[in-house]
């Protein structure tokens, strides 16, 4: 079944895309003060949210945060989630991701940021029993994560494919037209947000990159020259040969769904 077959469905999708843009913008406008202690696991969305919030405060590289989110989702795919404190696991994946990406985050900073994010308004954690317990817990959890993931902690990220595709597209469109709409930035934002959903594990990184770019193109109604998007040939076929159209839509839908999972601000 192809989504392109029905015009009604297609324009519905477009409306979704535009709504998603609105959500993305809204999210950036208000700094949400989530009370994580009141949130549930939400299929991995909540700890991912926690990873990105703490990771940004720690000024980790984007790929470090993406790695942490993927490691966290992979971990919870293997274990019974209710047996683990998802914020401890999230903090530990940040610590581990810093090592994997050679962007080391100090354990002391992670503990402080995680503590303050969970208990907003409290000052920094005193170096005392609570600090040492948390430190020990993170070191233990790191080892546990390594074991559960069978030491497979290096990740092929969609980012590098996305960068490569975007570069080529800039060439086709020409600088002026390319700069008229923030395609690259929007696509990157979609990609980052998709890391909140464990379904990112189900797709090839190349395909995820394409779907995020597609969403960005549609948001701004950008059409690529010389490429008729028809039933036989998709715009991305120069980049990836093995992405079916319905699979492509499926990924785009998953990305959009992330915005429906946004928790209510307390």
């Amino acid at each position: 079944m192809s989504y392109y077959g029905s015009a009604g469905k297609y324009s519905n999708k477009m409306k979704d895309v535009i709504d998603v843009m609105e959500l993305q913008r809204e999210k950036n406008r208000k700094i949400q003060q989530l009370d994580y202690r009141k949130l549930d696991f939400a299929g991995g969305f909540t700890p991912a949210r926690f990873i990105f919030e703490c990771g940004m405060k720690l000024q980790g590289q984007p790929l470090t945060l993406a790695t942490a989110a993927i490691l966290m989702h992979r971990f919870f795919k293997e274990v019974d989630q209710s047996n683990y404190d998802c914020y401890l696991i999230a903090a530990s994946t940040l610590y581990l991701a810093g090592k994997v990406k050679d962007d080391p985050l100090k354990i002391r900073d992670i503990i402080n940021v995680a503590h303050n994010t969970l208990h907003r308004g409290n000052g920094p954690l005193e170096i005392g029993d609570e600090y040492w317990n948390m430190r020990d817990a993170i070191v233990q959890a790191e080892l546990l994560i390594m074991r559960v993931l069978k030491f497979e902690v290096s990740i092929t990220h969609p980012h590098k494919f996305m960068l490569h595709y975007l570069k080529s597209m800039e060439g086709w469109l020409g600088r002026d037209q390319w700069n008229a709409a923030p395609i690259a930035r929007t696509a990157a934002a979609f990609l980052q947000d998709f890391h909140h959903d464990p379904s990112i594990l189900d797709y090839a990184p190349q395909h995820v990159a394409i779907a995020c770019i597609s969403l960005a193109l549609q948001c701004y109604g950008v059409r690529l020259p010389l490429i008729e998007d028809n039933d036989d040939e998709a715009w991305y076929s120069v980049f990836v040969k093995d992405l079916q159209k319905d699979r492509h839509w499926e990924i785009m839908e998953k990305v959009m769904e992330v915005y429906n999972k946004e928790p209510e601000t307390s």
Partner: protein
Amino acid sequence: MMRLELEYRYISGAYGTVFKGKNKKNDAVVALKRVRIPITDDGVPLSTIREVSLLKQIGTYRHPNIVQILDVCHGKRLEKELIMYIVFEHMEQDLSSYLDKCSRGAGIKSTEIRKIIHGILSGVEFLHLHRIVHRDLKPQNILLTESGVVKLADFGLAKTYDFDMKLTSVVVTLWYRAPEILLGMPYATPVDIWSVGCILGELYLLKPLFCGSSDSDQLMKILRILGRPKFEDWPQDISLKYDSLDVGEVGDLRNLIPNLCENGYDLMMKMLTFKYSKRITAGDALKHVYFSEEPLDT
């Protein structure tokens, strides 16, 4: 996870211990390498994490000349270290024991040598493409299947188990070390090519080419056979001055290895080039006429 049965203690290396085992699920015979991962206050060291995951990633390419890694299992957790088992496909023997057998017998056919060196170089080329320097290529770290296929072993974890982790009783051999390592200079992929050059010579000679007992003795043994390098090839920024080099009488590699053919000699000299930046790369070595000439059995 694989269920493994340890059959017997196999061979003990400098940094780990290798066992032969059996996968209970399918009766496949495997080799298990036990390594100790130090755990500090900061958890697992960054280098270990990067290397273990690299090792696993490398395994997914299934290169025919790299020993296949099957699994990584954890063993006992001690206070300051974690015991880890790396599971590999089991190989018939290593090149060192093969050389032993051949030196007691009729030697090695030159067609066979060519095949072995080609296999080693293919493995090395693959590692170098993935920015891995083996750093310790030697006959003990090169494994052979029953049908004589060569596979490289014992790479990747090298950095983690650097000198402080070494079990003191075992001496690490210097015989395959490139001059830049012996001189304490920074080094990269060319060190592996040097080692392959030494191994090429050894396969013809049936004994190691340069057998030094210390860094400086090793260097002298090399220079006494290859001669003093050209002045411009000698590094400027080291304490050992060019003029102070007293090499003495220089032997001739050709007389030393009379059964080495012309093209083999040429390739070997390109691999044993003193200055690392002039040394042949693995990719170019694989294209050398030595591998395409009409096989002559000597």
